[in-house]
């Protein structure tokens, strides 16, 4: 297949399906040839998914995980966007805060688990706090960069038309930075979905993360473990596709690829 040639429409479907089939085949025969009794085969996982769907608890777990992500990610957005915009707008303030941020940012939210439990106890709030932390820093950083990367020609034009500083921020700087902010939000949502699963394994007794750990602990049901993992993957993909739709809004789309 020539990499420059436009793939035919059947090829666009055929090759990804072939790759997935190959992976499933490797998985299936690995399980058979090693004759393992612990790790499930694809067929067992498929039965596991069906079993989970028939149990009422799966939907509750999905709703619990999504609720925590919505609250944690939402709070990170509500706090992070204004903070990031302000820091981008006042470089002096950013210079003060930036070193602290750069030290806190690379700390995995997982490392915060003990601290979160001290603050909030074992429970809902600790999990949400961890998601908040995971989402907060990418959002702030994206906003700071977004604001400082606004071309000076836009600011000058805004000032020229007599805009007060607050209007300049609302009508010029924010819309000009928005594509970069959206990229930060998308990154943060991905991290939030990673963190919720980890947080649910330790802090709470509901949600998809809990489902994974609970399936293992109560009878080593690895078919259900892998089934839950796949469900986590599919929902993560759906969240990403959902937030990517923001990039197609016309007043934002210019910042992505073939605009000017």
């Amino acid at each position: 297949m020539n990499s420059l040639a436009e793939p035919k429409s059947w090829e666009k479907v055929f090759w990804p399906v072939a790759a997935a089939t190959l992976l499933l085949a490797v998985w299936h025969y690995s399980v058979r040839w090693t004759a393992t009794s612990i790790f499930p085969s694809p067929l067992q996982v498929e039965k596991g998914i069906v079993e989970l769907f028939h149990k009422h608890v799966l939907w509750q777990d999905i709703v619990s995980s999504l609720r925590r992500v919505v609250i944690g990610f939402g709070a990170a957005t509500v706090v992070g966007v204004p903070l990031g915009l302000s820091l981008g707008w006042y470089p002096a303030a950013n210079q003060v805060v930036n070193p602290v941020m750069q030290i806190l940012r690379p700390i995995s939210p997982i490392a915060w688990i003990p601290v979160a439990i001290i603050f909030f106890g074992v429970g809902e709030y600790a999990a949400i706090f961890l998601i908040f932390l995971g989402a907060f820093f990418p959002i702030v950083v994206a906003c700071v960069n977004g604001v400082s990367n606004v071309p000076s020609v836009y600011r000058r034009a805004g000032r020229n038309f007599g805009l007060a500083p607050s209007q300049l921020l609302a009508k010029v700087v924010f819309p000009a930075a928005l594509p970069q902010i959206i990229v930060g939000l998308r990154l943060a949502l991905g991290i939030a979905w990673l963190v919720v699963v980890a947080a649910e394994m330790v802090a709470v007794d509901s949600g998809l993360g809990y489902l994974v750990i609970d399936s293992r602990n109560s009878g080593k049901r690895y078919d259900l473990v892998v089934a839950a993992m796949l469900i986590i993957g599919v929902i993560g993909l759906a969240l990403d596709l959902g937030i990517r739709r923001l990039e197609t809004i016309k007043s934002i789309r210019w910042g992505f690829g073939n605009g000017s």
Partner: protein
Amino acid sequence: MALREVALSPQRALAAKLCVNHLSMVFTRDGKSTPVLQDITLEVSEGEFVCLVGPSGCGKSTLLNAIGGLLAPTAGTVFIDNEAVRGPDPRRIFVFQERGVFPWLTVEGNIAFGLFKLSRSEREERVAHYVKMVGLQGFEEAYPSELSGGMKQRLEVARALAVNPDMLYLDEPFGALDSITRHIMRGELLRIWETERKTIVFVTHDIDEAVQLADRVVILSARPAAIQRIVNIDISHPRDISSPRYLELRDGILQQIGLAHKI
């Protein structure tokens, strides 16, 4: 000093729309100071079209930014209508290269950008008028990324004209356009200038462009820029760009800048 001179020749000061008085500009970076503009004195009268030309990097844009109040001069003052310029002002609008249009707003949104003080109906009327003037009918809802370079440039001119400024500052506005589009845009700009009669200060490095457009061409020297010569373009519009007088004036300017006639 500037004030005294205005006082000495009140009539001249009154006649001039724009009065640049012994303007100097020194940029300081890393402890090194670079003089950019040297003692520029220039008067532009109401409704006049003046082009600033000079070798690239000489400080033409710096001079325009100082005139427009986006940069504070190191020495000297700029007066407009006998009032010292202290900052940007919506009565005097800059037009940059077409990258100055806001990509997150539609054509209508861009033109309406400076009209936030008007009522809705006045704003709509103004927008429709300028959409028509720059020939963007049918593109009202389009975003800049859907427009060609020439259309974006016309959009930026429309956005500037919509606030009804008395002056326009154009900073190499057609520099990024191809030569055919640039040619058309010059014609459009002249047509608009003849109907609206704004005072225009136009920075360009294209000498033909200057001679085709301007009433007077101000030739700046290499950095630090000083005014080398001011050339009156005494040809009426529409200008025949192969007439002997046109060629004479153009060649005179080329010679002044120190460019040979032959390539």
